[in-house]
Structures are given as C-alpha cells and as structure tokens.
C-alpha cells in the first residue's frame, strides 16, 4: 500500500457537495486585504510547529540545533521490510545537522525531529528514502524538510503518491531542486514546495520563481551552518536553501496552524521578496 490514508485503514468517501452541506464547510478564516510578512509570521518563533529533517541524522545538543523532539533511523531488513529504530548514532555526514540548525535559527521554538535515511556504506538505494518519507508523512509533521532527491525513475510514482498524501494531510513537503540538469524527484511534483538557491546573504530573503518547476529560491550560498562535532562550516547548495524555506513555513504555520499546504504556498508567494514590496 502506498497511500498513507488507505494504509491507515480509512474508508474512501465519494466526492460531491449536496446543497444542504454547503453550510457545514463554511470556513470562518479571515484573510487581510493585503498579506504582509507582519501578518504572515510577525511575532512568531515557530512555537509548536513540528518540523522533520529527513536526512543523514541530526547531532543532538549542538549549540546551533538544541534539543530534538525525536530521532529515528530507517533501515531495511533482510526481506526488505522497513525497520524504524531510535537513532543513537546522530549525524553520519553533517548534512542533517546543518539543515536542522538552519531551521532552528529561523524558528527557534519549533519542535525538530530527525528521520535518518542514510547509513554507513550506503550508496544511494532509494528504498530507505521512500520508507523514511512514508514514516514521516504518517507521523503528521507540519513540515518535512527534504534536502535530498533520487534519480531513480521507478521510485517516481511512489514518491508522487506519498507527496500527494502529505499534501492532503496538511504536511508541507519542502524539497530541494537539483543543482544539476538531471531528472530527479520529488522536487518536480507540484504538491511539494520546491527550492533552489539565491546568493543574497539574508535568511529571510526568498523569491518566487514565475517559471517553475522550481517554485522558490532561498538562501543557499556561503551559509554558516551547524556541523558535526559541535562545529560549524560554510556551505553552499540547494540543500541549504531548502531548510530556509522550511523554517519560514514553520514560522507561518505556528502563527496560522489552520493553513493548508495550498494556502501556505499562496502566503509564501504573497510574501516573497520579488512579489509586492517585501524586501
């Protein structure tokens, strides 16, 4: 089973809206005349927003990361069965810690969890990646940061369904666009928020891209990030632009938890540095 809802044993309803049901779905949400950054995340520190870092693991107690809400490691057993265990190893590369630190820097009161999908001797099997994403979607995180992609076409369909499941379950999947001209997934899917890099040295500067598939550009060049061993490093790549957007999503969702991924993406568009006057 791929679909997370079906996986959870939910029955499939028929879709239509009878006249007498219109009243029931009336939403009391009031949008301002103009969506500003102040409205979107002014005063927010990300309190309560649950962010998942799907990556190489996260080093606990790093001064730039702080406490984690949870940390698990995903692996596949002898018969390809998915194994989820408490992660005692932390970060195997530094990359996940870097992403977690960026989110923490933007949304200091967010609740960060780590789902590790890389392991020693790992050479790029997409199976663990899929299992990790499925697990993360099932946990109902508000935001999943996915600074990874796979070039394996057979995984594309499953990833697509997982990304759609996340979208309908109000989990925002923020995914790195590939830095190279290759076909990779899941960032190309419209149900995720895809992120490339810009060079402006400001974490809150982000741009909407009017010519997708990449939809947003976040800070991704010469970023000082947390690294393993309690250290820091200066890094570049779309991998690091992605948690900037994930962090901003956490800020917005902490203040407006009722937003669906579709509405959140609209708020990002309306507050982008190149849309309106949000510099």
């Amino acid at each position, binding site marked *: 089973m791929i679909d997370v809802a079906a996986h959870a044993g939910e029955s499939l309803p028929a879709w239509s809206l009878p006249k007498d049901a219109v009243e029931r779905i009336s939403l009391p949400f009031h949008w301002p005349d103009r969506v500003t950054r102040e409205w979107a995340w002014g005063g927010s520190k990300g309190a309560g927003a649950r962010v998942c870092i799907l990556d*190489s693991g996260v080093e606990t107690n790093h001064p730039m990361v702080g406490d984690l809400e949870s940390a698990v490691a995903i692996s596949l057993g002898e018969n390809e069965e998915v194994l989820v265990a408490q992660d005692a190893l932390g970060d*195997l*590369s*530094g*990359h996940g810690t870097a992403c977690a630190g960026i989110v923490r820097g933007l949304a200091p009161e967010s609740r960060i969890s780590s789902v590790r999908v*890389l*392991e*020693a*001797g*790992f*050479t*790029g099997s997409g199976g663990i990646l899929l299992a990790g994403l499925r697990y993360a979607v099932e946990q109902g995180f508000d935001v999943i940061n996915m*600074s*990874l*992609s*796979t*070039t*394996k*076409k057979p995984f594309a369909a499953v990833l697509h369904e997982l990304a759609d499941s996340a979208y309908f379950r109000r989990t925002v999947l923020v995914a*790195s666009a*590939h*830095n*190279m*001209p*290759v076909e*990779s997934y899941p960032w190309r899917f419209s149900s995720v928020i895809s992120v490339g*890099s*810009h*060079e402006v040295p400001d974490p809150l500067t982000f741009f909407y891209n009017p010519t997708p598939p990449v939809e947003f550009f976040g800070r991704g*060049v*010469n970023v000082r990030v947390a*690294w*393993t*061993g309690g*250290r*820091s*490093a*200066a*890094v*570049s*790549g*779309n*991998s690091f632009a992605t948690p900037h957007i994930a962090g901003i999503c956490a800020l917005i969702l902490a203040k407006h938890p009722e937003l669906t991924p579709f509405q959140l993406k609209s708020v990002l568009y309306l507050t982008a540095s190149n849309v309106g006057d949000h510099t």
Partner: protein
Amino acid sequence: MTDSADLRAAVAAGVTGSEENYRTLLSAIVEVARAIFGAKASSILLLDDETHELVFAAVVGEGEENLVGVRFPAGTGIAGWVLATRTPLVIEDVNKDPRFASDVAEDTGFVPKGLMAAPLLHEERALGVLEVLDRPEQSLFSLQEMELLGMFANQAAIAVDLLLRARTAERILMQGNGELAAVARLAQAIAGLEDEKQRKAGLELLRNLTSTLGPQTSFR
C-alpha cells in the same frame, strides 16, 4: 547481462578505445576542472559496486602521485554523502569537519581546506564523484561556479560510463568463452582495416553473423 548484451559488450571491446585512452580522458577532465576553478587539485572518485568503496580514479594537483587507487568506504566523508544523495555540495572549511575522511588525506600529506563535489550521474545511476579542492581563498563561491561544476560532472559522467562499459567488456572477454573472444578479435580486425571496401565487406559479414546469432543481437 543477457547473452546478447554480453556479446555486444565483447564485440564493442574489440572496436572501442583502450582503458589507457579513457584514463587519459579522465585526467584531462580533472585538469580542466582544476584550471577553470583556479583550484589546487581535482579528482574523480569511482564507486566500486562490489565492495561499496569509492576509489580515486584520476587526480591532478596535490596528491596526484599517490592518491590514484586509494579506496575508502562509500557513505563516509563528503564524497560519500554526495554519492548517496546524488546532490552537489560545496563546503569551504572542510578541515574542521571531522566527517571528512581526513585520515585518507593525511596519509597522502594533503588536507584540503575547501571542497566542491558533484555526483557523476549517468541515466539513473550514480557512478562516482567529481571533486575540486582548494579554490583561491579570496574568492567567494558563486552559483555560477555551481553550474559549471554540474556541467563538468555531467561531461565526466559520460566518460566514466564509457570507461566502465569498456572494463565490463574486457572482463567478459577475459572470463568469457572462446567464442566471444573470437568475435571480438574479428570485430577488432575488421575495424582496423585500412581499405574502406574491405572494411565495408567485413562489417556486412558481421551483420550477417548477427542475424545468424539471433534477432536480439545487433551490430551497428
């Protein structure tokens, strides 16, 4: 590989370039990569699928004399991450990163301060990693360089794919039965004919041979 694929590979080995030529090509790629970025060194690491190790296949600059052939487990270090996630990465103060496989570097007396790494992707496979080490300290990294790095990695990946195919073909010839080797020698001899008329006739002969061997086998 299927039998017909084995046959195609074996025949290809007879008519394609030698491993030495491909090594020269890989060396040329790392030399140009180093020159373009004004870096101190550049290298290509290939994945050994059987041992899950990354192996230095071409190195220019510091370490070029003793790094080629050095192996370390895939999944470790910056190169390991780049390979596993198929994602390029630039890290400027890599000597402060304990996850960098510095024991490998220290063995060779060369510990880089900064590293750009991009995966070598061919179709759906990650074949290895292209690294550029120690760009000039005064220059800030830019997105333009990231794009260049990606273009270089794609070019290198094509060369690496050819090299790996040639190696596979060679292995099949070495381990395979006498018939395959005979076909490959025949193909090699025909390809080497100077007289165009003779070469054409030879190729026609091979085509006939292909149709005799079965519809799944093709020779172009």
